[in-house]
């Protein structure tokens, strides 16, 4: 089953190539940590289709919620889409990784805070931005080697991985990066398809000069 063959960015194209290479390498039989070799191909095949259905539900619910209550500027709505996409991504991970559990846990807390805040004033501070800001501000390192410092920065970037051991952190990061790559690929393809469709519908459909293949 071929994953999306159309790539919008060169980075995505390289990722596709690497994904195919890795699939062949895994098929040849690589001895690595237990379930790790199943993970890379997971984010590139069926899961991509499964996460699409989750994203679809989230996006539709968002549009309905957004249109019913004016949620403000495009940035707020964009952030809402981002959070929905992250949540769908975390759900697709099936709770096997720390970062996915952290995203789902924090979203529940933040959702309730957003509800209360919306009654007063529209203010939704994303915890990720706060964590990054605090990371830049403190920049402390208890252990001397710069490796530990970089690892700490990484722990802040990946949600829920601040207190993990180094090897676990690396594994989480690997999975998180692949998930992010898939998320970018998926959202880009969705945006292309959506813009192509809306362009077609606005221009009348038949005989439009826009190429239908995105």
């Amino acid at each position, binding site marked *: 089953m071929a994953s999306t063959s159309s790539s919008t960015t060169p980075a995505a194209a390289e990722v596709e190539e690497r994904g195919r290479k890795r699939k062949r390498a895994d098929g040849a039989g690589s001895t690595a940590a237990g379930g790790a070799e199943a993970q890379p191909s997971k984010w590139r095949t069926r899961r991509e289709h499964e996460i699409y259905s989750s994203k679809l539900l989230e996006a539709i619910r968002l549009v309905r919620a957004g249109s019913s209550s004016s949620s403000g500027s495009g940035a707020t709505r964009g952030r809402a889409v981002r959070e929905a996409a992250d949540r769908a991504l975390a759900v697709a991970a099936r709770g096997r990784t720390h970062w996915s559990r952290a995203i789902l846990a924090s979203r529940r807390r933040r959702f309730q805070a957003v509800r209360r805040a919306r009654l007063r004033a529209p203010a939704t501070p994303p915890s990720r931005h706060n964590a990054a800001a605090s990371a830049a501000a403190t920049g402390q390192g208890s252990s001397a080697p710069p490796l530990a410092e970089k690892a700490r920065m990484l722990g802040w970037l990946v949600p829920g991985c601040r207190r993990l051991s180094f090897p676990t952190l690396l594994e989480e990061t690997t999975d998180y990066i692949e998930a992010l790559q898939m998320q970018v690929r998926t959202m880009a393809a969705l945006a292309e398809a959506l813009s192509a469709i809306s362009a077609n519908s606005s221009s009348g459909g038949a005989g439009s000069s826009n190429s239908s*293949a995105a």
Partner: protein
Amino acid sequence: MSSRRSRSRQSGSSRITEEQISELVSKLQDLLPEARLQSNARVPSARVLQETCNYIRSLHQEVDDLSVRLSELLETSDMSSAQAAIIRSLLM
């Protein structure tokens, strides 16, 4: 290099082998886009971690931009065209 040695000394008690760590780091290095880092070359772990941080930040940024774009597109389209777009992008 000395940092790696001290790290293995620290983590000797918790039984994390140097080999394990370097294998994980090289796996991480494979994921990074080739434009940023020359793969197949032995790059120090600190550099890999740094590039990883930068890469994650850029991915976050990309997702943010895509979210804004998607939110605008979803605003101006109805459900049926959104569903059609989903199916279309699935087939491509």
